[in-house]
C-alpha cells in the first residue's frame, strides 16, 4: 500500500477546515435553538476534525521523511543529508509547517476539552467547542489560502535547500511544539470566557473549570520560554539568555497575563469575585498569544529570528486577529456590563494579595507591550528609526517586579477574607531575616544595589513559600501533627508553593547572571589568561570533519591555583553547503556557576596563529532554567490535585482537608447545572 502523500494531506486539511466550520456553527445554533442533537454533535465533530488534521500532519511528516522534494516546503527546508530527527522536526521549523502544527495543537486542545470535559454542562461544553472550532476554521483557512504546506514543485529538484544549521539542534527541535502548546492552550480559557459571555453567567464553578486549562497552558508556556532562552544561551554563543527581542517579548507578554489569569481564576473559584476581570484576562491572554505569534510573522516587528516578511500574508493575519480578538472584545463590551459583579474585599487578605499580583503583572505586561510596539509605531508616525533594548526593559521591569515579589511571599501567608497585620508580620519574620541575610550577602558579592535587592527578594519569596508549607504541615508542633497533616495537604498547595519557589530560583539565577564576568581575548597556542579567578589556557587547536561541516575545535584547560578543574572544547562549525559558520559553545557547570567558552575567528598562520575566545564565568546561570522547570512542575503538581482535574469532578462530597471549592447553590459538580430548557 502506498503511503499517503501531499495531495492526501492537502485534502485532509481541507476536510478538517470544513469540519471545523461545522463545529463552529452547528453547536452554537443548537444552543440558540435548544436542539439537543446539535449540541451532542460538537464532541464528535471535534474528534473528526482532530483525526483529519492528524492525518494531514502525518502526510507532511511522511513527505519530509521520504525526501519528497516535489513538495515545495520539503524542498525548501530539507535535504538528503539531513539526519532523520531533523527531517521530522524540520517540518515545523518553517512558516507553513509551523502553522499546520499550530492548527493541530488547537485541534488537540479541542479534543481534550471534548474528552476530559465530560462533566461539563452540555450547553457550556458545546459552546466552548464551537468557539474553538470557529478559531480553528480561521487558522486552517489561513494555512490553506496563504501558506499551503503541501504545494508541489515541478519538476522536483534532486536535493533540497537544507535547513539553517543554527536550527539543527535538539533543543530547538522540540521548542516550538512546547511553546505552541502554551500559546494555543490559552485558547481553551478564551473559549470558556466567550462561552460564559454568551451564556451571561460566570460563577465559581466556571472558575474551577477554567483553572486547570489555564494552568496547563501556563506550564507549557513556562517550559517553552525556558527552553527558548536556554537555546539562545548555548547555541547563539553570545553569552546572553534573553535579548528582549520582539519574538521573545511575544512569548513573555501572554506569560504575564497568563500568570495573572491563573491567579485570578483562584479568586473566582474560591471567593466568587473578580469574575469580569478574569473573563477579560482569559480573552487578553489568548489575544496576546495570537498577536505575538502572528505579528512576528507579518514582519511588523523587526526581529533577529526573522520569519518571512510578507505583508500580504500579514493583512490576512490582521483580518483574522481582528475577527477573533475584536469579536470577543466586542462581545465583552456588550455582555460584561450585565454580568453580576462580585464582591470587593479587604486589602489585607489572600484575595487582596492576588489582586495586587494581578495589578502588578498587568502593569508589567503594559510596560513590555509598550516597549515592543513603540518602535514600529514611532517609525510610522515620525519616520525616525529607533529601538528599545535591555536598558529600557531593565529600567522599567525591575522596579515593578520587586514589589510583585514582595507581595508574593506575603500573599501566600495571608488567610482568605480578612487578614491581620500582626500575625502576618509574625509569620513573615523568618523570611524577613533570611532576606536580610541575602541582602547583606548580595551587597558583599554583587556590584550595585539592585542585584542585591533582587537576591534578597528572591530569598524572601522562597522563604515565604517554605514558611507557608511549614505552617500548613504544623512543623515544629510535634511529630504527630506532621504525620496527621502530611497526607491531607492538597497537592494544589504543594504545587503553588513549588511554583513560587521556582520563581524565586529563576530570579536568583537572573541576579547571578547579572554578575557574570566575561572577556574576549585573543590567544596563541600555549598562552593563558586570568579571568574570573581562574586561569584559562589554550592548549591546542584541532580540525575535525563532521557529516556536513568542518569543525575547528579548541582545547581549553581551566585551572584554579594550578589545579586543573576542567578541559573544555569550544568549536566552530563551517557548513560549507550553506556558507554558514556556527559557534558551538562549551559549557561546564557545577550548578552554582557555568564556565562558558566560545571560539571566535582565527588570524594568522601556523605558530603565529591567534584565536579569539569569549570566556564567561556565569554564576547561578543554570538556575534560570531550573527555576522555569520547577515552576512548570509546580503547575503540573497542582493539576494532579483531585479537585483540579479537567472538567468537573463527578463525585460529590468533599474529602480531605482542602475541599473548599463549591458554588453556593450546592452545585459543586457540573452535573448539577443542567442545560436550561434543552429539549430532550
Amino acid at each position: 500500500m502506498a503511503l499517503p502523500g501531499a495531495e492526501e494531506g492537502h485534502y485532509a486539511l481541507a476536510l478538517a477546515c470544513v469540519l471545523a466550520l461545522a463545529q463552529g456553527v452547528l453547536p452554537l445554533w443548537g444552543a440558540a435553538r435548544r436542539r439537543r442533537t446539535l449540541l451532542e454533535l460538537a464532541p464528535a465533530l471535534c474528534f473528526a476534525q482532530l483525526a483529519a488534521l492528524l492525518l494531514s500532519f502525518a502526510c507532511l511528516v511522511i513527505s519530509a521523511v521520504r525526501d519528497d522534494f516535489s513538495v515545495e516546503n520539503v524542498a525548501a527546508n530539507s535535504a538528503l543529508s539531513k539526519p532523520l530527527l531533523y527531517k521530522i522536526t524540520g517540518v515545523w521549523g518553517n512558516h507553513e509547517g509551523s502553522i499546520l502544527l499550530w492548527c493541530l495543537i488547537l485541534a488537540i486542545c479541542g479534543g481534550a476539552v471534548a474528552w476530559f470535559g465530560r462533566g461539563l454542562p452540555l450547553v457550556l461544553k458545546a459552546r466552548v467547542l464551537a468557539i474553538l472550532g470557529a478559531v480553528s476554521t480561521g487558522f486552517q483557512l489561513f494555512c490553506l489560502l496563504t501558506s499551503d504546506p503541501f504545494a508541489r514543485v515541478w519538476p522536483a529538484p534532486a536535493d533540497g535547500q537544507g535547513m539553517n544549521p543554527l536550527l539543527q539542534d535538539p533543543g530547538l527541535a522540540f521548542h516550538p511544539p512546547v511553546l505552541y502548546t502554551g500559546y494555543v492552550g490559552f485558547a481553551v480559557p478564551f473559549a470558556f470566557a466567550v462561552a460564559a459571555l454568551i451564556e451571561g453567567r460566570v460563577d465559581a464553578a466556571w472558575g474551577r473549570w477554567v483553572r486547570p486549562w489555564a494552568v496547563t497552558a501556563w506550564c507549557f508556556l513556562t517550559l517553552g520560554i525556558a527552553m527558548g532562552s536556554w537555546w539562545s544561551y548555548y547555541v547563539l554563543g553570545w553569552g546572553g539568555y534573553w535579548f528582549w527581542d520582539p519574538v521573545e517579548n511575544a512569548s513573555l507578554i501572554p506569560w504575564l497575563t497568563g500568570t495573572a489569569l491563573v491567579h485570578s481564576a483562584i479568586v473566582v473559584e474560591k471567593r466568587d469575585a473578580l469574575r469580569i476581570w478574569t473573563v477579560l484576562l482569559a480573552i487578553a491572554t489568548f489575544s496576546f498569544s495570537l498577536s505575538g505569534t502572528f505579528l512576528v510573522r507579518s514582519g511588523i516587528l523587526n526581529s533577529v529570528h526573522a520569519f518571512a516578511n510578507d505583508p500580504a500574508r500579514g493583512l490576512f493575519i490582521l483580518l483574522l486577529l481582528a475577527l477573533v480578538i475584536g469579536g470577543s472584545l466586542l462581545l465583552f463590551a456588550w455582555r460584561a456590563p450585565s454580568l453580576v459583579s462580585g464582591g470587593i474585599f479587604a486589602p489585607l487578605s489572600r484575595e487582596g494579595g492576588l489582586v495586587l499580583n494581578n495589578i502588578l503583572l498587568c502593569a508589567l505586561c503594559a510596560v513590555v507591550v509598550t516597549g515592543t510596539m513603540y518602535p514600529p509605531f514611532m517609525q510610522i508616525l515620525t519616520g525616525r528609526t529607533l529601538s528599545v533594548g535591555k536598558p529600557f526593559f531593565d529600567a522599567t521591569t525591575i522596579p515593578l517586579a520587586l514589589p510583585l515579589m514582595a507581595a508574593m511571599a506575603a500573599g501566600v501567608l495571608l488567610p482568605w477574607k480578612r487578614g491581620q497585620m500582626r500575625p502576618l508580620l509574625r509569620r513573615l519574620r523568618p523570611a524577613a531575616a533570611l532576606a536580610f541575610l541575602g541582602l547583606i550577602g548580595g551587597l558583599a558579592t554583587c556590584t550595585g544595589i539592585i542585584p542585591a535587592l533582587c537576591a534578597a527578594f528572591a530569598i524572601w519569596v522562597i522563604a515565604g513559600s517554605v514558611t507557608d508549607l511549614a505552617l500548613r504541615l504544623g512543623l515544629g508542633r510535634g511529630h504527630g501533627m506532621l504525620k496527621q497533616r502530611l497526607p491531607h495537604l492538597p497537592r494544589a498547595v504543594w504545587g503553588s508553593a513549588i511554583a513560587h519557589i521556582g520563581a524565586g530560583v529563576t530570579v536568583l539565577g537572573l541576579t547571578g547572571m547579572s554578575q557574570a564576568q566575561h572577556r574576549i581575548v585573543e590567544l596563541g597556542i600555549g598562552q593563558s589568561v586570568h579571568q574570573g579567578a581562574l586561569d584559562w589556557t589554550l592548549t591546542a587547536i584541532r580540525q575535525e570533519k563532521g557529516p556536513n561541516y568542518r569543525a575547528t575545535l579548541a582545547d581549553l584547560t581551566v585551572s584554579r591555583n594550578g589545579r586543573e578543574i576542567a578541559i573544555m572544547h569550544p568549536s566552530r562549525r563551517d557548513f560549507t553547503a550553506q556558507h554558514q559558520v556556527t559557534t558551538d559553545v562549551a559549557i561546564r557547570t557545577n550548578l552554582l556557576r557555568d564556565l562558558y567558552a566560545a571560539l571566535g575567528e582565527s588570524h594568522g598562520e601556523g605558530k603565529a596563529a591567534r584565536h579569539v575566545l569569549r570566556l564567561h564565568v556565569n554564576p547561578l546561570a543554570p538556575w534560570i532554567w531550573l527555576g522555569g522547570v520547577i515552576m512548570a512542575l509546580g503547575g503540573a503538581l497542582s493539576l494532579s490535585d483531585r479537585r483540579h482535574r479537567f472538567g468537573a469532578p463527578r463525585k460529590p462530597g468533599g474529602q480531605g482537608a482542602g475541599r473548599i471549592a463549591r458554588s453556593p447553590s450546592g452545585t459543586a459538580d457540573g452535573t448539577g447545572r443542567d442545560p436550561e430548557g434543552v429539549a430532550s
Partner: protein
Amino acid sequence: MTIPSRRRLLMALPVAGAGALGLGCWKILSSMEEGGFDPRAIRTEAMRHPLPDFSLGGLPGAGEGFDTRTLSRTGEPVLVNFFASWCIPCVAEMDALRKIARFLPIWGIAYKDRPEDARRFVLRDGSPYRRIGLDPDGMTAIEWGVTGVPESFLVLPGGHIAWHASAALDARQFEEKVLPLTREAK
C-alpha cells in the same frame, strides 16, 4: 435591569484599545505593502540624491558598460537594475523587466557575477537591458547603497534618483509607481 453607562464605557475600553492597536498595525502593513516602510531597512533612502561616481565595464555580446556621465546625460528616464545570475528572485523578475523594457530603457548592473554566467543569464530568453555594466566586486553596489539583489532605481534625466525599490519589481508596482514618475519627467 439598567446598567450604568459608566460601567458600559469601562467595559468598552478594551475593545477600543485593541482597535487602536489594530489600526496602527494595519497602517504599518499597508505601507509595508506599498514599499514605503520596511522595518528591516537599515539605510537611508537613496532618493533625491545625485548619482554616485562609478564606471563599469560592459558585458561583451550583451551590452556596453556605462558610468556616471553617460547615465546622467540621457535625455529620458532610465531604470537601473542590479541583478545577478546566482540570484533566484532575479530570474523571477526577468519577465516583468522584459515587459517594462517596452516602456522604459533598463540599464543593468551585474552584481558580483561572472561575465559568462551573466551573459547566459541575460541572453537566455531575450535581454531586457539596453546596457549592462559589470560590478564584479560589488563596489558600485555599495556606492548606490544596495543591500542585495535585485534592486532597481529610477534615474531621471540630469542624474537624479527618483525612485528606489529594494525588492523584485512587478508590473503593478511599475504601473502605479514608476510610470507616473516618468510621465512627470517628460
